[in-house]
Structures are given as structure tokens and as C-alpha cells.
């Protein structure tokens, strides 16, 4: 089979290279964008639980509504949250949206608490309430 002229080779390879480049850029972008933000109840829940799982409590705090953030400063929250149970996994079972509020049922898996080594992780189900504030969905505590 005759070898393709150099120009032809480049013509064939160019689209492949572009696709590879595009995939690389997208992958890099996915790595740097740690959390999905607050654009939808699902995104907020993901940010909330993913950050908690990573013990990135500063990011967890950013998920709360203004009312909670006004009552509990970020530093206070972080210092207390790290003393509570460590979140190991989560699964959002359902989300229902009603105007500017939403509710979700979430399954959480916590690590055995300190001092209770050997006991199995605990799974619990919680209901999370969300509220839309200035376009962002936030976790509502009260």
C-alpha cells in the first residue's frame, strides 16, 4: 500500500488530534472544577455531600442558606463539624421541587465514630430541605 503524501497524513490526523485535544481540555476542566455548584437542587446536594465526604467543610458551609450562614460563622461550623461523624457515602434517592423550595430524600453512610472501632458503618436516611436564594439552591436548616 503506497504511503500517503505528508499533506494527506496531516489531513487525516488533524481531526483526530483536535478530538484528542478537546477531550484533554474537558478532562482537565472536570478535574479543576471540584464541585458542581448550586444551579439546581441536585447540584447543591452533590456539592453539599461531596464536600462533606472530603471533609472540605468550608465548601459544605457555602451550601447553607443565608439564615444559617448568618447564625453560624464558617469557622465555627468547620470546627464543630469535624468533631461529628465522618460521612463516607451518600445517595440521593429523590428530589421534589416546588417553586423556590425543594426537598430531597438522601441515604447517608457514616464511618464508625471515633472510639467505636470495629463497629460497622451506619446508614441513615435524611430529608434535606432546599431553598432558592438569588438563583442559587441552598440547604435550609431552619
Amino acid at each position, binding site marked *: 500500500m503506497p504511503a500517503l503524501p505528508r499533506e494527506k497524513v496531516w489531513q487525516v490526523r488533524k481531526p483526530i488530534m483536535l478530538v484528542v485535544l478537546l477531550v484533554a481540555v474537558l478532562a482537565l476542566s472536570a478535574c479543576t472544577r471540584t464541585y458542581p455548584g448550586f444551579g439546581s437542587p441536585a447540584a447543591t446536594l452533590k456539592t453539599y455531600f461531596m464536600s462533606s465526604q472530603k471533609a472540605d467543610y468550608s465548601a459544605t458551609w457555602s451550601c447553607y442558606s*443565608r439564615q444559617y450562614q448568618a447564625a453560624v460563622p464558617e469557622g465555627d461550623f468547620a470546627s*464543630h463539624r469535624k468533631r*461529628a461523624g465522618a460521612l463516607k457515602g451518600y445517595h440521593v434517592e429523590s428530589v421534589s421541587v416546588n417553586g423556590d423550595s425543594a426537598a430531597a430524600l438522601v441515604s447517608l453512610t457514616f464511618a464508625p465514630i471515633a472510639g467505636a472501632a470495629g463497629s460497622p458503618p451506619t446508614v441513615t436516611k*435524611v430529608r434535606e430541605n432546599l431553598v432558592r436564594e438569588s438563583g442559587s439552591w441552598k440547604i435550609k436548616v431552619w
Partner: protein
Amino acid sequence: MKRALLTALFATVLCLAFAQSALAVGITGTVKDINTGAPIPGAAVIDGGASAVTDASGAYTLAAAPGDYTLSAAKAGYLTTYQICTVSAGSSARVDWFLTTAYPAKPVPAKKITVLAWNDLGMHCDQDSYKYFMVLPPFNTLHAQVFGGEDAAKYTISYSFAKKQDSTLHTDFWTYASSFGYNLPKNVGLTGNGLSGQMKLENAQTGLFTASGIPVTPYDDDGTWDPYGQATLVVKDVAGTVVATTNVVVPVSTEMSCSNCHGTANPAVDILTKHDASNGTSLLADANAGHPHSCSECHSDNALAAPGKAGVESLSYAMHKRHDGKVSSDTDGCYTCHPGPKTECMRGIMARAGKGCVDCHGTTTTLWTSVDAGRKPWLDEPKCSQCHDAAHGENAGTLYRNSVLKNSVAGDMNGKIYCEACHNGTHAEYATNNPADAVITQTYQGDNYWIYNCQICHKGSDSETAFSGQAMHRGATAGGGGTESHTVAGFIDSATPNHPAVGQPVSFSGHATDSLGHSAIGYQWLDGATPISTAASFSTTSLTAGVHTIHFRVQCSSGIWSPDVIASITVASSQVGNVYRFRNLKNGYYLWTADENEKTAIINTLSSTWNYEGVAYRINTANPLNSSPLWRFRSVLGGFYLFSADASEKSTIIATLSRTWAYEGFAYSVSTDPSGFPVWRFRNKLDGTYLLSADPAEKDNIAATLQGTWELEGPAFYLAP
């Protein structure tokens, strides 16, 4: 001769010194607004006979001979407040006041059944980890009373937590409970109660329901730090029908800052190491072997009804004595071990009035030396009657948390309503500075005051009885007195507007209470010594410019007159300029202008955007004090306005924030002298906009009910009368 002169001179000096010391006897202090801390000029402080009126700085001096006094402080627009004090021979007593704004007069939503609920202590403590020792277990107590329906025995009350259903997620208490002598299933507390269940009718006579020992933690199930989480109470009748529901705060904190002194690596290990070294115990080794101890195993602890071991100091005694001198003798010092700088347990109205832990409990030294003197920790605690008059004291020999109303004019309420039902738990007495506490009062009254509105339980009461919360406590008179004697008291309910102009109608309204239930047969209102009305309520346009001290007294059917209560009204001269307020219909922003042309132009051309709200306040342009410039800025980004009478703030904004705030120049002239009437500035926490208010009722209503949105920055400027 010379010697005689010297002797005479010496005698004269002695006499003068003596006279000076006799004159020094009296009562001094200041009267301030509890929300803003601003001085209240024109408030009357009365000892039952003599009275004094506060000056521009809120200060007063009341001449008083040595003795015991029940004082009252009153000012139109504020609730009359009482305190007791003792004047000793040769010295002055200091009594400071923080007055609360008068009850907002508004109807409350009708509810057939009212359920009042509260936490007994205002805060409970537990621990994140029990691996090394137990000071206190997860243990919280809720009380509730049902009003407006059948006997309490015909109801059941259940409790539950929407967000706290599994305490084992965040505390290891149940891992070690058996080491402390408790054989408990997970999520069950010391009394057998869990995180949901039925409250027990603890006292059928008073109708008190209790759920004690609830093992709740400061964490929601998802890990949220929530020391002021809420329980939901559901009241059912005998048929099982839900007749009422309410939410109540269940405060709990693990904020014991042992690491401040015992190291951050593992403070518990440091504590046990020191304890073992001092006392020859093996607590650390035991804990490391998986068998931690409870402090109350050896140290008696009345909080847990634990007898301890003979010869070992009680836990309270040992802890306070051991830490005496290591922490400061103020609230910050107490917060080193008790919750705490982040939890802010001290949040009730007494804390808001400037009282700290030591004002009621004494210093760390007092807390252990008083045990030496026979005090029983947890059982002998501070008494309301240490500061408040007899009408507002706790029941004799009973703690506040167990006391009930006993001196109401309406006898059928006596012996039934717990103090905490209306005033909330100690450390969190209404009105607190934590919005989370006000769940019950917001539900029933729409504000964060204590329960004062008769209509909450007495549906269909007329407005006169509906807003007379102080009549609840018989004997609450300017003359003081106990609860057994015949006491007639007059109350000024309103004197409005607060600072009228000449010719403007001023309305006064008052009412009476009588400890024997006698009816009022006469009223007297005096402007100084001049009678101006004999009706309970009246209106006048005849007040001249200047300060008027209005006296009010009431005569009961047995002929006895009440002591005078006083309101101070300052009437501005008619030379006033108006400041108008507009509200932007699209975004809720406010604009104020004193410029008649601007006002007319806005009304004529921008009324679809800016809604004219009328005169916000008046400025007496004849008073030279009203000559300080007020400057106006406009937000470049948001289009809202900021006003400042502070020259340094103005310069700072111009110098550093000119990209954000456009300087619009002089707006109008005001006063910066605090003797005038304050105009308060609020900042919206959500959007950064500003609001000005010269109306004390509006200011207090915003501060009380919208504090989540509007932050009170304090007086922006003043209006001299």
C-alpha cells in the same frame, strides 16, 4: 485665740465633710434602650415617692435615705421595669436600666388550643466523645402546658425531631454507656426516653407535661452543627385527634473548651494524667483499656442525682475550686468551660441588659466557697428576687424553673402557669438575642417578646386586656410592695406620637390594676402640676413646645390612689422641616429627601417607580443643634441610597469606595448631639441596602422581628427638638 480659731475651723470642716457624705447618699445610674444601647433621656425613675428624670445622657440621680427600695423606670414607648436596691448609710447605690420597647399592639391569630413549651435550663451540655470520661451524658428536658381546652389529663403530647433521629451518628456515648453504669439501647437516654416519644403528665394539678433525659446532640443527622435544633410537639385529644402542634428549641452544646488549657493534641488525656498524678487514680489506664469512668462515680453530682463517694468533693465544688484563678471572673472566663463563645448560651434578656454569669452566680471563687457555706450545687441556684421586686420573684424556696404564677389578678391562673412557660428557660429568657428561641412566641404572638398577650389563651379578649401583660403580676407597682397587701397600680400604655410638633394631637392611654380586684373609679393626668384629663384615654393638641412631664394616677373603688407613673413628652416648635420617605416599588429600596422640589418631582414623574410614604420625620430648623450636614451617597451598582452624618465615614467612602458609592452631596441638616431623638440606620444583610427610621416602634419591630434581614447599626444622627 489662734487655737480656738483652728478648732472652730476643724469643726467646720468636719461638719462640711459629714454633710457632704450625707448628701452623697442616693441612687444613681443610667437608663438605656436594650436594643440599641442608646441613652434614654426623659425617663422617670421612681422609688414610690421621690422621682428623677434622666438627662440627655440617660443618667439620673435620685435622693434616697438609707434603706431598701423598689424602683421603677418608665418612659412612654417602653415597658415600665422594676428593680430592687439597698442604699447603705453614707454611700450611693448604682442601678442601671435597659428598657424594652412597649408591646407591639396587634391582634394575634385565633387558635383554639395553645401549647406553650420550653427547655428547662436554656442550655444542656454533653460531649462529642465519652472515650475517656463522662462529665454529663446526652440529656435534655422539655416541658409543655396546654391552654384553652380541657383538663390536661385529656390530652397526650408527643415529641420528635425532624433532623435529629439518630444520635449515635455523632456521639460515642452508647459505646461506653455500660462503663458509666447505664445499660441503654442506642438512642435511649438515662430516663428511658428516646429521640421521639410521649411526654409524661408530670403534674396533673398544674398540667405540666415533661420529657426528660432526651439524648439529643448538637448535630443534625447529616452532620450540620445545630445547637438550637427544634423538636416538634403534637397535642392530641382523647379521640386521638390532633388539636395543636408547635415547635420548640432544644438547646444543647458540646462546647467545653478544655483544649484552651489542656493542649490541643488530646486534652482528655492531659486531664486524666493530671487527675491521676494528683489523686493516685488510674483513670487514664482504665480509659485506655476501654473502661472510662463517670466523674459522678466518685464526685457527687446533683445534676445526675449521683451521691458520689464519701469524703470526695462534689463535682461542682472540685471543678470550680481547681479552676479558680485560671479563668477570668466574667462571662468570657465562664465560657472557657461552659458553652461558650460559639454557642452563646447567655442570650436571654438579662444578658442583653448587660448581666453576665457572675452577676447571678458569683465568681468562680464564690461557686466553691458557697458550697463550703452549705449551698447545694444545682439545687440552690440564683434567685430572681435577688434583683426583681417581690411581684416578679420566684416562689418561696423554689427555683425559677419550678416556680408558677401565684400573684395574678385572675385567681384561676394562679398555681398553674409556670414562669418558664411565658418567660422561657433560664439563660434564654425572652426576649433573647437568638432568633431560634422565638419559635413559640413567633407562632402565637408574631414577635419575640415573652408571652404577654392575653388573647393567646383568652380568645376574643378586648384590646384593653389583651395588651396588659404587666397586670399578670399583681403588686407590680411603682411603690413596690409584696403580693399580699392591697396594691393599686397605674400604667401608661401609650403616649403617642413620641415627639410631636406644636398643635399635633397627642394621645394618652392608661389603665389600672388592683390586687383585690377593685374597679378603677378615677383617673388623673397632669402636665407637671396642671390637670389635663380625668379619662383613661384622651387626646390633646394644647401641649406647648418644650419638655412635658406627664403624671398618671388611678383611684380604686376603696378610695386609694396609685403612685404616679410618669411619661416624658417633648414637643417640637412649629418651625419644622419635613423629611419625606419614598419606597422603590421594583426593588424595595428607600429614599429620603427634605427637598420639596425633589419630592414634588418624584411624585409627579416617578410615581410608578417610587411610592411616596409620607413624612418620615420632622426637623426643627429653628434649633441650632440641627445644623450638622447629612450627606447622601448613591450606590453605583444598586441604585440605593446611604446617608451619613459622620464626617469621617463620609471622607472614607469618598476616598476608598467612590467606585461603589457616588457622592451626591449635602442632603439636609440634622443634629449629632445625642440629646436629640435618634434616627436609626439599618443595613440589609441580604442586599446591602439601608433603611432609616425615626419611629422607635418601627425600629424595635424591625430589630425584633426582622433581625435576620436588617442589622441595626445604631443611631445615624439625631433630631434636636
